[in-house]
């Protein structure tokens, strides 16, 4: 693992420079002609989850397109991602070759103030994609729409357990509460069951332990296409082209929209030129066919916010989610 964590100046970056020029705003980095030899992706959750898919998909596009020599991955689950953030801060010096994938939960965590760290303690690289949230049920379930889920909930609230891959008060829980509130129910009464990782939560859904699963849309699509689960509601404005069979919550009369951004952070104190090299590489990735393939396969939406834009975006989202959480009673 640690053997692979070196970022080196490469001499053969002339062709890369041309590719970067088209996509990147940060011309300063290009002058240095950086090529990233390898990236170690730190994934703050178990494998099979949304963070996992994002890191591995990004790594796949970067290595297959030749923008990065090689990529390695490390899953470090626990505390809804706090374990990995703590690790990256604690071991900042030895992790200059590491990019941590993260998403909306890092904002939620900094809001609840339970943890000492927040996104300001890390080097912001870029937000790269978004994913909608989805409600999923077992293929054998008698529930076929969000309305059915609501009806079952109204009949016996304690009998309808909704699972997710994040801690209580984390994003999967938040989305479930949001949708329930939009449907006119008391969001704090929803029985939410936390799992260590999206994969384990999916196993619990298939085993019938939980009635429904609040998860990322891209995590659910593969299973839905295989016929193992049904997607009963997506938090997008319109149906997503990757799986148009899935109804949105909006068209079912539940006014909830939510996009979970995903992006990359580096260790605190990372030299600015290295950070710029990462940003330029990620920016160049959008124009490659390899990325388009990964993006389409996973049903992700490109939402690119690099460097200072990323910071502004995060500060804004912090404000929005904070208001929402106060309303929901989480703060």
């Amino acid at each position: 693992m640690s053997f692979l964590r070196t970022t080196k100046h490469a001499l053969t970056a002339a062709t890369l420079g041309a590719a970067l020029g088209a996509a990147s705003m940060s011309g300063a980095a290009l002058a240095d002609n950086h090529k990233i030899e390898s990236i170690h992706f730190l994934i703050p959750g178990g494998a099979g989850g949304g963070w996992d898919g994002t890191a591995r998909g990004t790594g796949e596009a970067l290595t297959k397109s030749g923008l990065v020599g090689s990529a390695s991955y490390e899953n470090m689950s626990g505390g809804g991602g706090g374990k990995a953030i703590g690790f990256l801060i604690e071991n900042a010096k030895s992790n200059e070759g590491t990019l941590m994938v993260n998403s909306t939960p890092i904002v939620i965590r900094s809001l609840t103030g339970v943890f000492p760290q927040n996104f300001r303690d890390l080097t912001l690289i870029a937000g790269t994609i978004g994913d909608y949230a989805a409600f999923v049920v077992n293929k054998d379930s008698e529930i076929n729409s969000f309305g059915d889920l609501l009806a079952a909930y109204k009949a016996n609230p304690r009998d309808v357990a909704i699972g997710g891959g994040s801690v209580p008060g984390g994003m999967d829980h938040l989305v479930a509460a949001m949708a329930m509130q939009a449907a006119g129910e008391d969001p704090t009464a929803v029985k939410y069951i936390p799992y260590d990782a999206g994969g384990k939560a999916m196993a619990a859904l298939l085993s019938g332990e939980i009635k429904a699963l609040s998860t990322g849309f891209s995590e659910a699509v593969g299973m839905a296409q295989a016929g193992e689960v049904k997607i009963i509601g997506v938090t997008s404005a319109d149906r997503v082209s990757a799986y148009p069979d899935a109804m949105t919550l909006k068209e079912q009369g539940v006014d909830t929209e939510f996009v979970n951004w995903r992006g990359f952070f580096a260790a605190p104190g990372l030299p600015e030129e290295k950070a710029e090299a990462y940003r330029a590489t990620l920016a160049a990735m959008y124009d490659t066919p390899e990325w388009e393939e990964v993006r389409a396969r996973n049903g992700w939406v490109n939402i690119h916010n690099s460097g200072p834009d990323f910071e502004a975006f995060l500060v804004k989202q912090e404000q929005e989610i904070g208001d929402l959480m106060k309303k929901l009673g989480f703060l």
Partner: protein
Amino acid sequence: MLEGIMAGVLTALSLQNLLMVVAGCLLGTFIGMLPGLGPMSIIAIMIPVAIKIGDPSAALILLAGVYYGAIFGGSTSSILINAPGVAGTVATSFDGYPMARQGKAGKALTIAAIASFCGGTVGAILLMGFAPALSSVALLFHSAEYFALMVVGLSAIAAFAGTGKVIKALMMTVVGLIMATVGESALFNAPRFTMGLLDLQTGFSFITLAMALFALPEALYLVLDPKRGATKDSGAIKNLRITKDEAKAMAPVVGRQSIQGFLIGVMPGAGATIASFLGYAVERNIAKGADQDAFGKGSVKGLAAPETANNAACTGSFVPLLTLGIPGSGTTAILLGALIALNVQPGPRLMIDNPSIFWAVIISMYIGNVVLLILNLPLIPYIAKLLTIPRNYLIPFILFFTMIGAYIGQNNATELLILVGLGVFATVLRFADYPLAPLLIGFILGGMLENNFARAVNLTDGISFMVERPMTLALLVIGATLIFLPAYRRRRARALQKGVAQGD
């Protein structure tokens, strides 16, 4: 299906793929011998190589080879220097290390190799015959049953509750359970018992604790008490062969544990560690009289049980991965990532859409096990010779690997301070005759025990699940029996003896 198997055989037997199996097994075995580098990290290192290969079956065969090679090699450090590098080989050290201390290191390694081979091979056969049917078994357990399964796993501590040590063993288990709660957990939005220390935020790491409790006190003990530290017989080579009696004792254990281990491995929430503890606990309870007392002191059965079970479980963990697309362990999760990166979507359609990949992987497991046995048996005399190194050189060597093991996983120098601190604490406990294995068992199972218990309570709004779910109840009864029966039996035996003596 037969066509698929044939295509798989042809794919697996191609020269390229055979080379992949051999390369993967060799690499996995040697890196796996180092404490601190478990199968998960080795596979993570190998992923870029595998993706460069491009051919999904070749890549997966290489990674799978690395996987069982690492499991195979992982037992070596447990047996020779009492330094279990992965949680799945902790139970291996219970009897493997005492055997090595009795000068039977070569024999212990041979038993481990043969047990691993049998577990892996039976696992591969079961996987081949029943993988699609077993996907429903993988979903049989809910959190309530996983909680009960962890309780059964905890019963492995009973083996260390020898005469007069019951209270001590229980105390150590509780310390382990408490240590498992330190840090952040999956269920609570807050870190616990970190005393404000950022380094404890991530909790204690398994490898640091294992080194501090097992390897470090052992090395210190050798220095502080040289007489006790003397290995009885340094001629590790001549004891390589297994006698007929030993083979006879081993056979039923290996047979039972291959199947039990495999089934536990199929459960996405259990895995090789639980399988090895359960295997150890069950076999100890089945054994009778002197056989049972030998557990923990260098028993052939006690070594064969966890080694068979953990290898069978590793193979079993491929069932949910390949048939449902659900990873049961960190290692299979990394394999899932590799598969997706290679454009293979595991799940119920894999067998239909890509039968040659599906079967090639399963058949290469079988080949891999044979390759591992052939590679390892001739090497054992040389590996066992490690213990003939004079103590003056051996102890620094053990200390070095202990430190490396604790550091390499986390890349955090604070781990070394924690290692030394806990190591001193553990050495003191050893002098006071407290068994340390229950502490580690408690620590390993504690997290899973708590998470599953909390989920089950939350789901059923109380603890009624313990009696309402028949499978949970049955498992809990088995667990309680396994924990308390040995103590009760011993007490009754003593009472009977007294009675007879008074009657005379």
